[in-house]
């Protein structure tokens, strides 16, 4: 699941595209803004870019053009992140967006591709089963058998098409792709050429080609990037929401959506959501909200996405087994489960947190008792 965490409510979600798809591509949903930017943009554009780097940054960060056109912010977060990402693409280095679930990696990657190349559809969705064909090329076997190897029989991958046309290719979940397939990207990125030995030909990248990859940096057990591949990328880490309010807002909104689809009663609970977010943020940052007590950080990610699932889990408990109101005892087990991943170290961190922070906090006695009970 990818939550456009730090992205605001999108107009796209409000107005369905004419064709009636669930979610139109960024370049369609924001066509008007892109056109307005392109019209006003008088700065130097790198070859095959639709906009100048400055205009791309403005498209993502929002602003008002001299003629009064309002560009909605696509990414609400540190300016620096977007500026580094755009500058990376401008130096034709590949861009790796890292972050825990719920930090809008995919969202940023899609909008970058839409703004730079006007096309965000050259996409490889990485899975453990992604074959080499999806980053290089495959064959139309019927044609291959009938006519022998030819360019007509070749099925280009999104990456190959991006090279040939000078576009931005996107690779989602790079770390889920098997290591040997990842390796295929190494020479492609450094030599900017893709040989096709079967035909004695090659595809050379034209200016404007670039690649944006996204990956989750806290998940263990996936195919870690080799250092050789890592060196081909400039890395930008997308931070978690900066303020508690932002995060509470995101969690509340998502919980509301999920709750509706699961037909759960949405009975207030904002205060409990605030507490869950506070617990997550404090443990994640390793310091209490008042900045006075340092805490051990547990090994789990404690991402915004997990906070959402703790709250929805609690809601389900409250609806089906409780009195329909979200109470600390509905959250306690979920909280403990999200925090304690490693039985020894995390358990100590969790207990310390309960004893030194939760117990002392005004009005948190009920949560403390519930968590102590859940801890057994």
């Amino acid at each position, binding site marked *: 699941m990818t939550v456009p965490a730090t992205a605001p409510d999108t107009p796209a979600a409000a107005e369905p595209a004419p064709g009636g798809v669930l979610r139109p591509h960024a370049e369609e949903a924001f066509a008007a803004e892109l056109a307005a930017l392109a019209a006003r943009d008088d700065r130097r554009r790198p070859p095959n870019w639709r906009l100048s*780097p*400055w205009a791309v*940054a403005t498209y993502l960060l929002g602003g008002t053009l001299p003629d009064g056109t309002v560009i909605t912010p696509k990414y609400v977060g540190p300016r*620096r992140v977007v*500026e*580094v990402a*755009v*500058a*990376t693409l*401008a*130096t034709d*280095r590949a861009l*790796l967006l*890292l972050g825990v679930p719920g930090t809008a990696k995919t969202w940023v990657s899609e909008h970058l591709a839409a703004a730079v190349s006007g096309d965000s559809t050259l996409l490889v969705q990485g899975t453990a089963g992604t074959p080499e064909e999806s980053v290089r090329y495959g064959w139309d076997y019927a044609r291959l058998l009938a006519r022998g190897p030819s360019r007509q029989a070749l099925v280009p991958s999104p990456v190959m098409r991006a090279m040939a046309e000078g576009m931005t290719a996107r690779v989602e979940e790079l770390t889920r792709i098997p290591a040997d397939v990842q390796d295929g990207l190494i020479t492609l990125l450094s030599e900017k050429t893709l040989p096709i030995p079967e035909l004695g030909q090659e595809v050379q990248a034209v200016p404007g080609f670039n690649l944006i990859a996204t990956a989750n940096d806290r998940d263990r057990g996936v195919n870690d990037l080799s*250092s050789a591949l*890592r*060196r081909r990328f*400039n*890395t*930008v*880490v997308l931070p978690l929401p900066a303020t508690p309010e932002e995060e509470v807002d995101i969690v509340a909104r998502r919980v509301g959506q999920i709750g509706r689809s699961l037909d759960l009663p949405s009975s207030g609970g904002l205060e409990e959501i605030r507490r869950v977010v506070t617990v997550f943020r404090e443990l994640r940052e*390793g310091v209490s909200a008042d900045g*006075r*007590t*340092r*805490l*051990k950080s547990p090994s789990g990610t404690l991402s915004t996405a997990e906070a959402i699932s703790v709250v929805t889990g609690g809601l389900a408990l409250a609806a089906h087994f409780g009195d329909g109101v979200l109470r600390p005892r509905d959250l306690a087990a979920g909280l403990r489960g999200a925090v304690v991943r490693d039985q*020894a*170290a995390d358990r*100590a961190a969790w*207990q*310390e947190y309960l*004893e*030194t922070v939760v117990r002392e906090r005004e009005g948190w006695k009920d949560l403390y008792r519930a968590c102590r009970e859940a801890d057994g």
Partner: protein
Amino acid sequence: MTGPLLLGVRHHGPGSARAVRAALDAADPPAVLVEGPPEGDALLPLAAAEGMRPPVALLVHAANDPGRSAFWPFAAFSPEWVAIRWALARGVPVRFVDLPAAHLLAADEAAGAEVGGGGAHGREAARIDPLRALAHAAGHDDPERWWEDVVEHRGAAGDPLAPFAALGEAMSALREAHGDGGRPRDALREAHMRLSLRAARREFGDAVAVVCGAWHVPALARTVPVGADRALLKGLPRVRTEAGWVPWTHRRLARSSGYGAGVTSPGWYGHLFTAPDRPVERWMTRVAGLLREEGRTVSPAEVIEAVRLADALAAVRGRPLAGLGETTDAVRAVMCDGSDLPLRLVADRLVVGDVLGEVPEDAPAVPLQRDLTRLQRRLRLRPEAAGRTLELDLRRDNDAARSRLLHRLRLLGVDWGEPAAGRAGTGTFRETWSVRWRPELSVKVAEAGVWGTTVEEAASARAVASARAAASLHQVAGLVEQCLLGGLADALPVVVSALADRAALDSDVGRLADALPALARSLRYGDVRATDTAALARAATGLAERVCVGLPPACTGLGAEAAAAMRARIDAVHTAVGLLPGEGGTTGRWWTVLRGLAARDTVPGEIRGRAFRLLLDGGHLAEGEAARAMALALSRAAPPAEAAGWIEGFAGGASGGGLLLLHDERLLALVDGWLASVPPDAFTAVLPLLRRTFAAYEAGVRRSLGELVGRGPAAVGRTPGALPPDGFGASTDADRADAVLPVLHLLLGTDRTAAGPAGAGHHEHAEATG
């Protein structure tokens, strides 16, 4: 040209420094005037001395109170420093022209305000920031960045004097709009600068050069009647001052507090000033070098990419050249995999940097030395080369002050006094020192001058810095103790919070437990020395809580040696917890922890036995529970080694276990019964442990135990009261017991009349628990 050459600069701006050097070379003025306190004039020639290495600071302090002082720091890239060195190298006269520090310090005394060096270079928040105003006019948010773009990063091309003229005009426009910008004292300073400038022009001609903050340029260019300036400065209060050079560090230059002109990136500025060309490329190479030293692989290709990214970022942000922000972002994205951790190292070592200034040997004594001399005189504690022993009674004010002085000096690395072993049992209000003054200590004092102007201030600063840099929890706990001993109330909160931070992150219960006793001790010292220890008590309680949480898991699966070490720790923590103040919540938790330890099978016998013993001594066991638990621990199913460990933990060593066995014969019977049931081969294995346990008893106890056991299992195993041991009556002799009571009341200070029933109660209680 006519009129003086006014060179407006930003303090500590490398671009300004470079521009000043170019302008001086071009104009070749007959004299150079620099913004700074005239008290430093006599010290100016030292700036060119052999051993002088910036960063250094000119220090002026009130003669009678070194604590009241002002600093004018100079780095190699400070325009003022460049101007001074330029003048000294050519034999051109150079002078400071600012308002004398004598007035500044006197004014601060009158206002009762904290004195910082800000008087000279300050830009307080409430004032108009001229650079901010200019930057906003140019459409930039960040004044520092704007200034860097237009001045500091500008190449050295064209007329070296032109930029100063342009800057002067801009500042004139600003001053017209903002007047004195909310700095009333500037009027005095500028009047003094104008008068000095006038005198210099009479002496050296019109072409003298002035290096001052850009803000002051319009005021110096203005013509004001001499009389008006004189009138303004007439009758200003002043104090007697002394001045000197002190070594400075880049880190202190970067300190934003106290010094208005603090720069956040002295290392970067130093680099910009010294790099002959291609500053970004050279910087990236240095960063790569540092990261490689720290064990990261950084390829030359990455250095190239980082430079390209920094340039592209500058373009996206619309800056003429990549600045520190761009280079940092580029380093993070290319060399650090987007992580901030290695970046912190770069910020610490390169952006700020470890540069330490030096001052020549023959420079006037640092104020710290003067303060020390003053204290030595006042406390009648003369530095003598012959060693002697000093007995201090901390209840006397003079002795307490002496003790604080010696402790503070130790913190500063000036080991004039060493704590010596005092007479046995002297209590907490006595201290014994062996004091000896060695010549090299003077050097140490001079070195410590960088930390502050008085012993107290320097020791505080040093303690805070050490606490932040300390590697282990143990060290910080030691610092807390030293701060308390030295009476450094200012440093204590910072050190204590550093301690709390470290304790929170340390996952080794052993280290936490080791730190706790020192803290508990500190709390008691604090009481003796009347220090406010609330924060310390909080930290200690927090530490104890963490120990309580972490101890049970840490006690499982230990080998014999580790178990012995852990037992010693538990003893130490037990004592420490007893010393902690508060409502007893922590103590309650500690008893729960001990109870848990005593009952858990995976915990080594030695620790279980110890926990049981502590519970027993604390009166936390019900009647008969000790015997039941011992029976359980020594039952046949328990491996003999475990059981022997339990006995060692329960009754071993110097903890009075022998007496316990002697007086509770049920326990002795259990031990005896167990010993008799150990199979022969296992007996050899547990013998060393048992021997260790029982050999530590006092001879008398051992003999009595032996006699008791010698009568055989029947005698040992009988119920109390059946047959007394040698030397004891058949039952309690009430009359003889009563005869002791008056003496007891006298000793305990209890009221005799009220003690009747209470005494009886105690008696019952003793029976119940014993």
